[in-house]
């Protein structure tokens, strides 16, 4: 089965700004690299970023949540330092609605990620779903 990565803003390029962002990786590439900012990315020796194996629909959805969440977090840190950067804020806002949709879908299907969105259902699903350090 082929699993698709959700990448709504791939190859989005931010124009050169006084704040020294010339461009960003898309959320997929940035997430795999651990760095959304092309000007900050530097490899160690000849190591390439790991590819992440997706084995199920659940893992695919979680991967997509993680990549959007990561891109938003990177923009968040950037906006902490440059709170008036409209391009960064617009991009953050674009990711936000995608993130909410994906998170809702995941939590509806597979159980809570946040403990303020737990269903009224016995057994209590916060306890009844695996913790993330356990290998499934």
């Amino acid at each position, binding site marked *: 089965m082929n699993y698709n990565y959700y990448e709504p803003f791939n190859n989005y390029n931010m124009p050169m700004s006084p704040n020294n962002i010339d461009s960003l990786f898309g959320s997929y590439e940035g997430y795999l690299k651990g760095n959304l900012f092309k000007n900050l*990315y530097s490899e*160690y020796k000849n190591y390439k970023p790991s590819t992440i194996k997706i084995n199920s629909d659940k893992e695919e959805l979680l991967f997509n949540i*993680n990549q959007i969440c990561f891109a938003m977090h990177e923009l968040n*840190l950037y906006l902490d330092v440059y709170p008036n950067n409209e391009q960064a804020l617009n991009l953050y806002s674009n990711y936000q609605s995608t993130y909410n949709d994906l998170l809702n879908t995941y939590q509806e299907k597979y159980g809570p990620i946040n403990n303020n969105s737990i269903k009224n259902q016995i057994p209590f699903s916060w306890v009844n*779903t695996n913790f993330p*350090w356990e*290998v499934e």
Partner: protein
Amino acid sequence: MWQYQKKLQYPINIKKKDLKMAKYLVTQYGGSNGELGAALRYLNQRYTMPDNRGKALLTDIATEEFAHIEMISTMIYQLVKDATIEELEQVGLGSHYAEHNRALYPTDSNGVPFTVTYFATTGDPIADLYEDMAAEQKARAVYENLIDLTEDEDVIGPLLWLRQREIVHFNRFKELAEIYSKEKKV
């Protein structure tokens, strides 16, 4: 306040037991350049930043460091999970077993327990931000040392990823320190 998200920031899926690597890796949990020290360093420094940019950046990076503590802890847990007592003893983890059994405990690679003397708060935003820049660079260097010590791709992948985070954090701290200097905030 804080709210837990029941997921890792980046997936960890280690299939091969490696006690030696677990022993080395624990320094990024409880060593002088580890994630626990980073998180506490930033949380303690944030109250005396001159404006909300510093307060926000230190809060948000400290919060991310807790996600990194969870990643490192997960790696150690998975590397050690199926070890016998004899195997623990063979790599010098017998004394860890005596004190902690298979529980996690923040130490450096030599077993020296975590201490708050690993970080400073001076109340001087420039001094604190430069300490943070140095801390991120030292953590990057330790991640590189750890990558050199393993050939397991399931371990190298997350370490490469965490190494990049140090680079991004270093640059954000550097930019803020330069802005504060230029604006004569301090």
